[in-house]
């Protein structure tokens, strides 16, 4: 687990894990060894729900993804495509 390349974001949104929705307000994005995906490295995304992640309730307030580099690029491109095709008047905010 040693590329140590971590981008940290402040964001606004919600995420669902299991049956529970939670607001998310920060995220980490990093390319490093996954916990679960069967790859030596993966693009990992952690979404946190309490601004200052940590302390109690940490288990419930993290939503995590581990993606292959190709999948991560496709996801990023898909996000850009849907944003580009959305009417500008509804993109504000």
């Amino acid at each position, binding site marked *: 687990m*040693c590329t*140590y390349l*971590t981008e940290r974001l402040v964001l606004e949104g919600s995420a669902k894990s299991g049956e529970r929705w939670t607001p998310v307000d920060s995220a980490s994005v990093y390319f490093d*060894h996954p916990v679960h995906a069967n790859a030596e490295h993966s693009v990992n995304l*952690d979404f946190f729900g309490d601004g200052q*992640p*940590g*302390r109690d309730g940490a288990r419930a307030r993290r939503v995590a993804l581990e993606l292959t580099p190709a999948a991560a690029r496709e996801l990023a491109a898909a996000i850009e495509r849907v944003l580009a095709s959305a009417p500008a008047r509804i993109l504000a905010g």
Partner: protein
Amino acid sequence: MSQRRIHDLSAKTISFASADGDQIEGFLAQPTDVDRFPGVVLIHHLPGYDQATKEMALKFASTGYAALAPNLYSRDAPDAAPDDAAAIVRAQGGVPDDRLVGDVDGAARHLRAMAGGNGRVGVIGHCSGGRQAFLSACRLRLDAAVDCYGAFVVGTPPPESGLSAQPVVDLTPSLSCPLLGLFGADDKIPSPDQVAELADALRAAGKDFEFHSFDGAGHGFFSVDRPNYRVAAATRGWELIFDFFGRHLGANS
């Protein structure tokens, strides 16, 4: 090499005092069929205080050592799953060095004070724990240290990493004990050049050390449940670890 004796053992989660006075969680495994045993502080990797770490503690106990693995994330994410705790600590920039050294100090004191402890304590760490093992052996009085592919003993994390870890090679003159280093020749962090730089620093400081780099192995080759596991390197690595600790800590293996 002769077959090592496989010891009976017991293992449990304990609470022990860090040097800063905080009570933190740890996983303690120890042999139950010997009167005297050395201690090993087992520093977990960045993915956390996980099953793989605890299985390593069991391996040490079955080989005649008391092994104590501090949960370095006890304060940040108590009761969280290991991967959640690791994500939280990553987002915070990692474990502060002073706190880490205090936790290792507390674990070493606990091992020395155990009934049956022979008073000798080593430290071992993998990945981020490799750097932390080296750092601990430079800041504390220990009897042997093993650095398994520790990143950023030499070299600085890029600014975008968000991690606070800084190189610790400048502490080499303070190294208090013999050092065993195990590395993958295909690893990028630490790279073979960085391993060579650390060896140069150890040589210049007149330190007792031995390094082994395994061809065909990269980072994390001890991780039995990951694709980067390399059976030949890991098997030989464990032999070297037990030979090294046996010489410097005096296990009843």
